[in-house]
């Protein structure tokens, strides 16, 4: 798919409250830039992310969805991100199986200290999504703004 110069993807980043949201705060504190396309939704833990939320985002017009949580072993709730990891792995695999582009979803572990990683991750993810182009395979035409 040709890279569309004017394509401004919508990217939803679900961030766990304890590590990744704080990591995102830190990248703000350090004035590390990443595209404004990325909008963060705070959830208590990566294990709060229901696959339905990801599908919902695609339905409503998101072009990419990323989940950020504490590194394995560092979960504030000890085990949440382990469950999240299994759930996301299977969901992504199922989406891939159904022919949805692999790059549209991602999981990244970002600690509260990794402001730079957060920004870098968002930059990279946005780039990937721009390369993939608009989400067509999981869109809902009724949600398109005319």
């Amino acid at each position, binding site marked *: 798919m040709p890279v569309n110069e004017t394509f401004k993807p919508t990217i939803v980043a679900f961030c766990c409250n304890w590590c990744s949201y704080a990591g995102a705060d830190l990248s703000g504190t350090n004035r590390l830039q990443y595209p404004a396309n990325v909008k963060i939704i705070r959830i208590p833990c990566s294990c709060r992310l229901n696959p339905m939320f990801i599908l919902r985002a695609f339905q*409503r*017009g998101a072009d990419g969805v990323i989940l950020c949580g504490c590194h394995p072993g560092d979960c504030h709730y000890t085990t949440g991100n382990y469950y999240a990891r299994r759930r996301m792995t299977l969901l992504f695999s199922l989406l891939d199986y159904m022919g949805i582009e692999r790059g549209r979803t991602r999981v990244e572990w970002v600690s509260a200290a990794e402001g730079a990683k957060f920004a870098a991750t968002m930059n990279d993810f946005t780039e990937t999504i721009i390369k993939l182009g608009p989400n067509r395979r999981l869109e*809902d035409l*009724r*949600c*398109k*703004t*005319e």
Partner: protein
Amino acid sequence: MKTWKLSELDSLFAAIAAAQKLYIPADAAGQPAFTLWTPGLSMTKALNTGRSAKDLFFPQVENLVNFKVSGRRIQVEPGREEVEDFVIFGVRACDCRSFDILDSVFLSDPVDTFYADRRSHATVMTLACSEPEETCFCTSLGIDPQAPAGDVSCWAMEDTLYLEANTEKGQALLSSLPQLGQGEKPQTDASVFHRLPLKDLDFSVFGEKPLMDWFNSPVWDSLSQSCLGCGSCTFVCPTCQCYDVEDFDGGATIRRFRCWDSCMYSDFTMMAHGTNRPTQKERFRQRFMHKLVYHPNNHAGQIGCVGCGRCLQKCPISMNIVKVAKALKEGKA
């Protein structure tokens, strides 16, 4: 009678499709369905489609109207799809009869303009049956599968398709096809229809007793006991016409659409304070009472079934109108 070579059916389709959209029963992902004809698409070998022909007049989902809301203001905007003239080819006699039943609901006052629109734009070309399935029982409902109604009736016999217009619309269609030939249709052979296992079903009994007698029949408990409460019978049924109206808030626009609904579903009559049909028995009974008793009561004895046999083939637990009708008649399941 007009004729066309069966081996050149494709060019007949092309000729029809040149002027308007044409739907034919074709295999889509292994499932026979009325499909928009495009060059190369050929007829299914199956007797009939999995979903009935009602879809073309009463689609599963249909947008009604759109709204835009800003603050406390509401703006109503058109949301219905424009309908163009179209032709359905290959409708069997049973499905064709179902249009009469649907008409009696949708075209009665107040007219459902969405349905009416599609009906008026459609030309129905039926196709006579010669190789029924064992589940066919349209003959029990007074339908002659070898003499289907519709705007144009067709017979595929030997190597020829015979076409006969029954209505002005049909006439207009046939006269728009100057390529058609002329010929005499040979006698049809009805012998296989006399061998159908369900040919002797008796639906006349349902008019002979008061509604409440049927309603209170002891058979409902055991008939309904294994019903899954799914909607497969409803949705493949050519005469089921219940629908739901819902809103979808897509952000900028709120779309009000209607979609098929099933009286078999537990939430069909669910209200804030409960439902008047709390168990599957009541919901099951409603569906069959409606087809066998309520609808005929309101429509000059016309049974709400056309004997297409789809529910016999599709029900996950093999419960169907034939079993129900027989059990009701005998008073035991």
